[in-house]
């Protein structure tokens, strides 16, 4: 099943500057696994040392936060849009 994953600007360096990736998987967890296998640099950014999802990154399926659906078990339909939304501290590009 193909879904579209939106990669936020801070992570684009790790996906060869691609901001939308067509990924495979029946659940959010599967898609993220596929994604981190395809782009290994993403793994450390999305998951902590124990493999848990990092708490400053939210994952949305279409417009819903997966924490309010079935988390990584959230089932996907063909064409769903998955958004990876990290906390951003903005206003400045320095440092």
């Amino acid at each position, binding site marked *: 099943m193909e879904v579209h994953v939106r990669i*936020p*600007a*801070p992570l684009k360096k790790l996906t060869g500057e691609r901001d939308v990736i067509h990924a495979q998987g029946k659940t959010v967890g599967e898609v993220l696994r596929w994604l981190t296998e395809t782009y290994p640099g993403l793994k450390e*950014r999305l998951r902590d040392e124990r493999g848990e999802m*990092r*708490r*400053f*990154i*939210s994952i949305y399926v279409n417009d819903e936060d997966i924490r309010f659906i079935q988390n990584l078990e959230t089932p996907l339909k063909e064409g769903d849009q998955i958004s990876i*939304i*990290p*906390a*951003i*501290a*903005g*206003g*400045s*590009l*320095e*440092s």
Partner: protein
Amino acid sequence: MKIGTLKTIKAFKDWFIIKARNEGSEISVEETHQLLQEKEPVVLLDIREKDEIVLGYIKGAAFLPQGLLNVKMEELLPDKNVPVVVYCAGGIRSLAAAKLMKEKGYAHVFSMAKGIDGWQKAGYEVVSDSELTPDQLHRYSRHLMLKEVGMEGQLRLLKAKVLLVGAGGLGCPAGLYLAASGVGTIGIIDSDRVDLTNLQRQILHGLADVGRPKTESAKEAIHRINPDVKVVTYQERLTSQNVIEIFRQYDIVVDGSDNFPTKYLVNDASFFTGKPYVYGGVFQFEGQASVFFPKERGPCLRCLFPEPPPPGLVPS
């Protein structure tokens, strides 16, 4: 509506204006002023809508909105021999009104050409019952026309106190718009000085400000746009020591800070002081914006992102 119809309407309007003018029912603002100085009885009739009248009217005017003219004019002006000068904003609606009154038998009806706009431009006095000064009525007139703002909204803006955390890439445009719109008090907290690399986006600061505290140049820029705004500056870092005391004095907190510790500090202090927290973040060409207001049962930043990233893991 089709373009053709619009054109027809416009042509009709032009024709009507020319016809009404040729009938000699127009008088200038100067003539009107002269007429009012004389002791002769003359009725000055303002046919604008209520929301236009609050912006100011000519002293001594009677009010009857154009829509009610047909049914109410005889009740308001039983003597059809008294001279009447009708005015509106620009002198177009009053032409139609004067024509209608003539048809109803009023003997001496004039439309004041160029309306109250022309009256004001000629330097004649306009009075108002509003809490706003004449300058404010003029400055905020485009807000006052919007039903979503209006007089009530403008007065609320003038009484509002907004704190800007940071006068950088986000704080600068926010500050400009808040000042222009008439927010009465703007607090600015920033410990930085202006750097040349800031100028490409931090639009409150200019080249001559490089090296100066951002709070100072921000204050000056705001006063150039709107000298009525009270600007309170805090040339310091926001810390857990000063945050509560500062936040208490404001209605809304706008966060334009560029680092996670400050963002979470602003979030937590907004939560504890019960203030709405206007959140924004930018990274290159992507941005996030939200309002967190837990006091009104909304979520806070920690609901969205429970913890800030550890230092070094993400660029800020």
